[in-house]
């Protein structure tokens, strides 16, 4: 099994190397192989990790918690690898096509691979390095279209995320100090010793490290008030990159927060870390829900919805019951599929209508026979309507919250998620159900003819909706075991 872990780690980087030299057709094929392959490999780990952890060498270790995040990233990587084929057909921003394609594909693969690496590595320092790599790669991908707004978004993103990661590095250092009080100086920050050390760790440094980590990595999670880069980067990036940012990057950073949560919980007891998570979660959810009510740009709309969902995850972590933690982990995978889908649908709309303004979109259901319904399904899924997996996960979080005695927090969660639901559905109903634009002077433009821009952009959305419905109706046995084990790891049961 450890060979599989190494394969998951290497497949994306290998694909990136091939893309450095290969002709465009090969780039596309190799990326699809790497994306879908990494999902297959990650799935093949599920039965084993349902019962035990897998280690490979001294530096790689997969437990249930990390596998959940590997799966989420692999889902997005697989969907996006297919979607990109359709996306790049019409986009190269006036640059040399082959050079643009090469940059794009190398970037996508390195980005995917580094996000897969983050949950696989065993140790806070390696984790920091992996997440920093995701930052620099994705900043370049955000800027790849070299427009004014893309450069502005990339600069903001790079500066804010780098500063955030500087703070996260401080957290790593303070945690190293805390660990070296127990283990001596030859200690390498791997997770298990830190988690098992429990009360032996000095309390104040752990507390400091945890808060610094929530702020530092929380910058990349998009927690309010460190979220300001997020809507810009998500809106200005090319759509496949937006999908990866939202579906995988945010949760990968959230994974880093969870590792600190585990350690802090062992050392300090659960009250302090839970209170911190609750505070950040409520503020994030509140602000995002309000912003969702008044958005004019489809990609910004979904970006704020990402902040909303990160808020839900963070509040979920403040509930102690295993049911809520199970919901949090399921939510990570479900959000990846749903938000990936939403952005991919938004990308088709942008292509079809030639802009991101929501006001210009009319009659999506009749003009886009596949994307219209699929986008509707994704938006409903995002707003936690049954039978989507997000309904199941949010239901578990709320039920867990009430069971745990966190009545007020759970009630606030329900209220704010409802506000977000109103914002999302209002905007998307207008797009989809309003009458299509009347054929005017330019009646022969493709806008007025029903039809999809590219079949490659539809296939992954079908896949995403399938995953959402499957997980919503029934979580397969082994995956359910993995999620329960992960919840137990988070709950400090080991």
């Amino acid at each position, binding site marked *: 099994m450890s060979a599989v872990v190494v394969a998951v780690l290497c497949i994306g980087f290998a694909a990136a190397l091939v893309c450095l030299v290969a002709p465009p057709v090969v780039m596309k094929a190799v990326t699809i192989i790497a994306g879908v392959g990494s999902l297959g490999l990650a799935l093949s780990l599920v039965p084993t990790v349902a019962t035990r952890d897998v280690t490979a060498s001294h530096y790689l270790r997969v437990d249930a918690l990390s596998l959940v995040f590997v799966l989420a990233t692999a889902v997005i990587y697989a969907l996006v690898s297919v979607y990109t084929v359709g996306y790049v057909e019409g986009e190269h921003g006036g640059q040399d096509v082959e050079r643009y394609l090469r940059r794009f594909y190398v970037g996508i693969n390195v980005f995917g691979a580094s996000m897969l690496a983050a949950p696989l590595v065993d140790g806070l320092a390696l984790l920091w*390095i992996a997440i920093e790599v995701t930052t620099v790669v994705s*900043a370049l991908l955000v800027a790849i279209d070299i427009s*004014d707004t893309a450069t502005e978004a990339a600069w903001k993103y790079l500066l804010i995320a780098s500063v955030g990661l500087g703070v996260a590095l401080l957290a790593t250092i*303070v945690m190293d100090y805390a660990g070296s009080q127990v283990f001596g100086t030859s200690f390498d920050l791997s997770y298990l010793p830190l988690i098992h050390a429990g009360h032996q760790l000095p309390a104040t440094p752990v507390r400091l490290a945890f808060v610094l980590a929530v702020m530092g990595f929380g910058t990349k999670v998009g927690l309010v008030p460190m979220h300001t880069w997020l*809507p810009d980067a998500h809106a200005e990036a090319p759509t496949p990159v937006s999908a990866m940012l939202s579906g995988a990057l945010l949760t990968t950073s959230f994974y880093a927060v969870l590792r600190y949560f585990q350690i802090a919980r062992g050392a300090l007891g659960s009250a302090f870390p839970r209170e911190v998570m609750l505070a950040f979660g409520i503020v994030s959810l509140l602000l995002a829900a309000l912003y969702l009510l008044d958005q004019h740009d489809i990609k910004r709309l979904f970006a704020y919805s990402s902040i909303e969902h990160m808020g839900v995850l963070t509040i979920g972590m403040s509930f102690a019951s295993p049911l809520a933690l199970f919901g949090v982990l399921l939510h990570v995978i479900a959000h990846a599929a749903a938000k990936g889908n939403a952005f991919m649908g938004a990308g088709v709309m942008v292509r079809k209508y030639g802009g991101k303004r929501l006001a210009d979109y009319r009659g999506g259901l009749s003009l886009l026979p596949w994307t219209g319904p699929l986008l509707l399904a994704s938006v409903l899924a995002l707003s936690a309507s049954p039978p989507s997996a997000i309904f199941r996960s949010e239901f578990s979080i709320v039920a867990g919250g009430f069971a745990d005695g966190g009545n007020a927090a759970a009630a606030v969660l329900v209220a704010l998620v409802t506000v977000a639901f109103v914002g999302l559905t209002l905007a998307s109903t207008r797009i989809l159900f309003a009458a299509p634009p009347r054929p005017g002077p330019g009646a022969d433009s493709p806008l007025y003819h029903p039809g999809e821009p590219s079949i490659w952009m539809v296939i992954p959305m079908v896949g995403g909706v399938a995953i959402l419905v499957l997980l919503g109706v029934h979580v397969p046995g082994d995956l359910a075991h993995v999620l329960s084990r992960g919840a137990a790891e988070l709950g400090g049961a080991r």
Partner: protein
Amino acid sequence: MHPVPSVFEGASNTIAVLVLLTEFAMLRAALLRAQLRLYAAQSLLLSALAIVVAASRHVPELYVLAGLSFVLKVVIVPWVVTRLLRDTSTEIAGSGALGVASEVLVALVAAAFGFFAIGALNIHSRVLPKTALSLAFAVVLVAFVLIIVRSDLISQAVGFFSLENGVSLASLVVASGLPLILEVAFLFDLLVAVVIFGVLARVTHGRSGSMSTTMLNALRG
């Protein structure tokens, strides 16, 4: 009774104070070249601190780290940024949101907050010079102020690099046992960040003809 500080403690505290002073000097430097020189000086101080720690704690790997960090932060980064300045013929830092005097006052408050807050946490041990850790947090906070009040790309980038210096300071005094490979990875990472900051700054300059961030205002809401 206060015990007499050891040579190590004295040296590391002195260097940490100097690092903080260079950070303040960067805050009031109006010429980008001057700011860059101060950054190089600050990095040089950190390399010196690494040697002090290596000698007094007997951590030979830190000599390697001191060498690498010297090459990267004292030579390569300033060289890359200087070339960027020359190519874009930019010299003067964008006037900040505040006047220099108010900037320094705000930074003083931030630094004092960091210094005393960390001091009040009472993180102590036999080997740790407590003051240096507080100073490192003060450096980080002043770097925050620098990034926030300056309105040109170069100052912001250099502000970020000096923030990283503050973090390195903390890592040297608190976590000198951090494996060398990780420290090297951190440095490599800084190198990549420098290159990408440079690419983005060049693109922005190419499009708007200036290095000012006041042009970057299209995205809001």
